[in-house]
């Protein structure tokens, strides 16, 4: 079946290109993109939402400058780096040349390595990897790869932004760190300690916990520990269920602290927060539900269509960047597109952004937002809770930008 499709596909694409008669060899093509992320297990709700987000974004870009259509093919990596490699192999076997993945820096590092090796060994069959959410700085520093492009902001950038806000908060005196025990969580803890020691040396770190990713079902013992530490703020890079359950346990025990988070907008967390949190919840991210323009317009359409929230706005920048790159390269061949994407400036959902040539890290502004009741100015209702994220500080791209140690090997 697959074989027959491919046989028919080639002449069809070729004749379409002939008929259209324009210089764009890729026009009229359908570009298949492998979506490798958890679609089952503790983080399934996030993967499912993001799969919808990608396809939704691609459909919104129906008529675009490059004249291509995008089709996302889902692969369930169950959150594991090992499974991700199997998925990647299956995708390559199906002739897919583009990969998107985001949940888990462990899986991201595995995919990035595997893609580099594959491309070296199989000239003519190169694969391009868009990382839309894995924020371990190593991926654009010591482990950087020519075929890896990051759309999210890495932890060094987010920490720079978050601490530039926290240093001005007089009520931040004792901070408790609780993170998932893998690359991302460890980096959050490390970068926070480094950056805060520089900006506010008087702030005490009263706890620094790492727990197994997606395994803890009862955070009550951790919350008791946070309480006993006398912390006034909790800093966490947790996402999905690991944050939902932490917030729930904090509410049950009546923990009265402010939360500084990366991923309070991910599926499930808003519902838990709407039930009540002792203190405020603030989030550092490259976006929030109040960014004017595309976000405000599209999130309503997304809600109408799926009764779900579009919070991974990197999908917009991902598709916009590919469209721009393909139009510039006049091809959908990953080799040409990768070359075109280096240093490309394009219009993202928040304005103009740049894919830095040195390390393939998108240079973009960051926002600190706070979880509050929806009002006339910010009417959007996240997860139909009547609450949303409201901007408290915007950080310019040049402030959020951090240097890189990447020694890019170009083919």
């Amino acid at each position, binding site marked *: 079946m697959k074989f027959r499709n491919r046989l028919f596909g080639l002449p069809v694409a070729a004749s379409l290109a002939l008929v259209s008669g324009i210089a764009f060899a890729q026009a009229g093509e359908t570009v298949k993109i492998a979506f490798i992320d958890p679609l*089952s*297990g*503790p983080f399934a*709700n996030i993967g*499912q939402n993001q799969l919808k987000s990608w396809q939704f974004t691609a459909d919104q870009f129906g008529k675009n400058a490059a004249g291509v259509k995008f089709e996302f093919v889902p692969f369930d990596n169950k959150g594991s780096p090992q499974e991700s490699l199997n998925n990647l192999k299956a995708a390559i076997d199906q002739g897919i040349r583009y990969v998107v993945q985001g949940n888990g820096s462990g899986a991201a590092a595995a995919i990035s390595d595997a893609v580099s090796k594959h491309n070296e060994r199989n000239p003519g069959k190169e694969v391009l990897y868009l990382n839309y959410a894995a924020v371990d700085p190593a991926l654009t520093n010591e482990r950087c790869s020519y075929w890896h492009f990051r759309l999210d902001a890495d932890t060094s950038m987010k920490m720079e932004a978050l601490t530039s806000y926290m240093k001005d908060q007089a009520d931040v005196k004792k901070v408790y760190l609780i993170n998932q025990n893998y690359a991302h969580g460890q980096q959050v803890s490390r970068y926070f300690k480094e950056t805060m020691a520089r900006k506010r040396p008087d702030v005490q770190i009263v706890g620094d916990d790492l727990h197994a990713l997606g395994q803890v079902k*009862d955070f009550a013992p951790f919350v008791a*520990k946070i309480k006993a530490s006398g912390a006034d703020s909790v800093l966490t890079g947790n996402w999905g269920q690991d944050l939902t359950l932490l917030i729930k346990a904090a509410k049950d025990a009546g923990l009265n602290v402010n939360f500084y988070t990366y991923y309070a907008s991910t599926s499930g967390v808003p519902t838990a927060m709407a039930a009540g949190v002792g203190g405020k919840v603030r989030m550092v991210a490259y976006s929030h539900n109040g960014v004017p323009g595309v976000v405000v317009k599209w999130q309503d359409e997304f809600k109408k269509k799926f009764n779900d929230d579009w919070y991974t706005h990197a999908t917009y920048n991902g598709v916009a960047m590919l469209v721009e790159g393909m139009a510039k390269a006049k091809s959908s061949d990953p080799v040409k597109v990768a070359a075109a994407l280096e240093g490309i400036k394009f219009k993202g959902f928040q304005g103009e952004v740049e894919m830095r040539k040195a390390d393939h890290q998108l240079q973009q502004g960051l926002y600190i937002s706070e979880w509050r009741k929806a009002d006339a100015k910010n009417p959007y209702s996240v997860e139909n809770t009547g609450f949303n994220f409201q901007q408290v500080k915007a950080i310019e791209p040049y402030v959020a930008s951090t240097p890189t140690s990447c020694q890019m090997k170009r083919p």
Partner: protein
Amino acid sequence: MDASYFLISLLNGLSVGLLLFMLASGLTLIFSMMGVLNFAHASFYMLGAYVAYTITQLLGFWWGLLLAPPIVGLAGAAFERFALRRVHKFGHVPELLITFGLSYILLEVVQLVWGRQALNFLPPESLRGPLFTIVELPSPGGLSLAFGEPPPACQAVAGASCTQFPSFRAFGMGMAVLMLVSVWLLFTRTRIGLVIQAALTHPEAAEALGHNVPRVFMMVFGGGTALAGLAGVIGGALRVTEPSMALAVGAVVFAVIVIGGMGSLAGAFVASVLLGVLDSFAVGSDRSLADLFGALNLAVTPATFGYAVWSVKISQVAAILPYLLLVLILIFRPKGLFGTREG
């Protein structure tokens, strides 16, 4: 601060331990009765949570709590009657394998029917708030308990530390204790309990006296899985209702019954509470072997050989402590804390 931390950690540990006990009691009953190690036991726990979720959507939580355990029990009894009994004559290994297979089937069935995502299964409205608040005022205030929401003193007094204990946790603990008492009464005070005990040790003699021993087996299996179902209703609402919930408790329940002694209800109780409290305090402790050496006046610095091992905090290894205890018990007391048979 320390006193209220100790108290809340103890309560958290007890509540986890009692939930474990609800699961382990059914498993150990089935084992002591039939010699079958039911690998699908945790799957019945998961089934209980999912069935209760569906009933909760239709009729409300209390009906879910009431109906889900018997439904799961019936499913368990049917499995015993139509599958397990048939392989019984081939010995223990096929019995083990068929329950192993069942755990996979149940997992897939649950994913087919309810999907792969976590469900939003919540305790009933009336049990969502705090049952009581532990208030610790700076000296000379001391420790006190206040029922319901935190008292005004929590806001008014600087340095006051207030920790709430959720009603639903307490409710789950109550259910476990109720269950323990009723199972114990059933075994020691009723006729049916006597028959079960007789069939446990002398099945041929009980059969010769006219008791239907296979039916007793079916009832025990059904009863054991119903208890797992009940644990599922509590566990599902207290934690998360998702397909991996069986996996999350499956292994530790086996550790509980081995530590407590295979087939011993009292052993299961002591071991569950022990593991629950151990976990709760281990997570909260940042001590390491390096601290222990330090206390013994042996200096351990980052330059010391094997520092990476010595400096591991207890909280980091909390998750493997049950299995460490399991291995130690198997080495030094293979029959378990309260077990009666060797090996």
